[in-house]
């Protein structure tokens, strides 16, 4: 069970808004880069987010560049999951690969600052502030296994190869 506060963002939060190209020189210094997480979307975010909180987006979250540093610094900021209406393809894989859950559901009913409770097993999100309950789309099984191991590197260290579920 995950519990934390919602930080609400709009549609089309690009990886340029999460970690802009002008900070390219910090990519091999992740703790420093993490101080700027989502800075161009909300300059106050990095200072306000606490361990366990949620980034809640609209449509097409994480579009743009393949930079894995984007989900990585969101995770380093303490965020326990990203919740969005839809997520760009590369960002989705990257988030799972660094062990950050991505939950797809209608986020219109979740407001900035709401207290959320997420049950990854049951597949639902409870908004404790508004009382709203919403289910999220199931994560494909191969990604669940990667997530279970904490990311793709620990997954590969354990299995040594991709293990496809029996169809």
């Amino acid at each position, binding site marked *: 069970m995950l519990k934390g506060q919602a930080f609400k963002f709009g549609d*089309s939060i*690009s990886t*340029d808004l999460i970690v802009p190209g002008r900070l390219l020189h910090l990519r*091999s210094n992740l703790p420093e880069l993490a101080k700027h997480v989502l800075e161009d979307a909300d300059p106050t975010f990095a200072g306000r987010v606490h361990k366990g909180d949620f980034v809640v987006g609209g*449509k097409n979250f994480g579009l743009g560049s*393949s930079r894995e540093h984007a989900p990585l610094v969101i995770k380093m900021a303490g965020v326990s999951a990203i919740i969005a209406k839809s997520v760009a393809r*590369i960002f989705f894989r*990257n988030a799972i690969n660094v062990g950050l859950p991505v939950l797809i559901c209608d986020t219109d009913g979740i407001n900035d600052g709401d207290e959320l409770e997420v049950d990854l097993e049951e597949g639902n999100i409870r908004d404790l502030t508004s009382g709203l309950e919403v289910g999220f789309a199931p994560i494909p099984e191969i990604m669940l296994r990667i997530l279970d191991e904490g990311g793709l590197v620990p997954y590969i260290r354990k299995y040594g190869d991709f293990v496809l579920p029996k*169809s």
Partner: protein
Amino acid sequence: MGQTLAEKILTARADTEARAGHIVVARVDLAFVQDTTGPLTVRQFSEAGLPLHNPEKTAMFIDHSAPSPAKELSNDHVFMRKFAAETGAKLSDIGEGVCHQLVAESWAKPGDVIVGADSHTVTAGALGAFATGMGSTDVAVAMALGKTWLRVPETMRIRANGKWPKGVYSKDLILYLIGMIGADGATYKSLEFTGEAVTAMSMSQRLTIANMAVEAGAKVGLFPSDAVTQSYLREHGRGELFVPLAPDADADYESTTDIDVSRLEPTVSKPHTVDNTALAKDLKGVKIEQVFIGTCTNGRLEDLALVAGMMKGKKHHPRTRLVVAPASQKILLAAIEKGYITTLVEAGATVVPPGCAACLGVHQGVLGNGESCLSTANRNFKGRMGNPESFVYLASPATAAATALRGEITDPREVL
């Protein structure tokens, strides 16, 4: 039931019948990184603790901040060069060009599966390769295992027919398409391009379209492999690698969109999203401080020839700086030989080395507060060119040249 291009390629590389929705593990013909994603890839690769599957199928490109503008980035480059020297992975160093252009010139062939730690890896779809962008860790694992897992995408067929009108290019077609379906209109899908207008397109024009497939969210942007593919491979000394590739007539498409290119007009993406499109003629009067011509989208010889032709004997508008970055060393040399570079420099252009240059906001043309750039690149997100207080418009090289001459967004048909 027949197969789409994506299903055909993945069936061959996964040794199992690949149908939309299946999850397959496919052999990888090339895994590559560039200097913004490479250092993390190397660290993840080392962490995974496996050897390199095949150095001959692993490439590292130093193109995004090349030559380096900062010591931290120089150290990233040192780190990448060291890894390449130790493992035998192929290294392309500063000045050689943008990874996607070099992959097209020297690596990609029809039927390949290519994974690159760069979203514009889709560019090689123009040669009939299932080429897709991934993050550092996915590519690190592909480097170690020689394979990757993929969900076989559903396919949206784009059928382009009609004759290309004057002043309209493949860039206008892809901007029009993204404007129509939206920046997430093809998320997780394969975009497959067919039709007589596609057959008539040069490889240079096809690469522009495949490059921007990801701006509609697509996993791949695929073209059939035909006579144009064959002559492109031959031109680059790789003719023997040609194989014809086409979708089956009875393939199953999620949707089919018909576009009559004869009705297209010069198109521009306005700040701050690629799908925010308008016609160039309707943006007359929008003042532009910088025109940037280059990148993996539109920095090829055909583009430079067009721009040089339009600017010959003229000067750029005094308000508008003109920055030109050829996409590869091969292109730069050919452009020198043909006199295009002389023409552009005489027109007042600043020619920068082959590489990504100003596109991603690190160097060689970062914008000032309130400034606007019209660029031939593929992305105009807020902050993309290094300053969230600036504005980026995207268009074809012809629209860029016309705009450089007039100092405001200009429909190229007024100048051609």
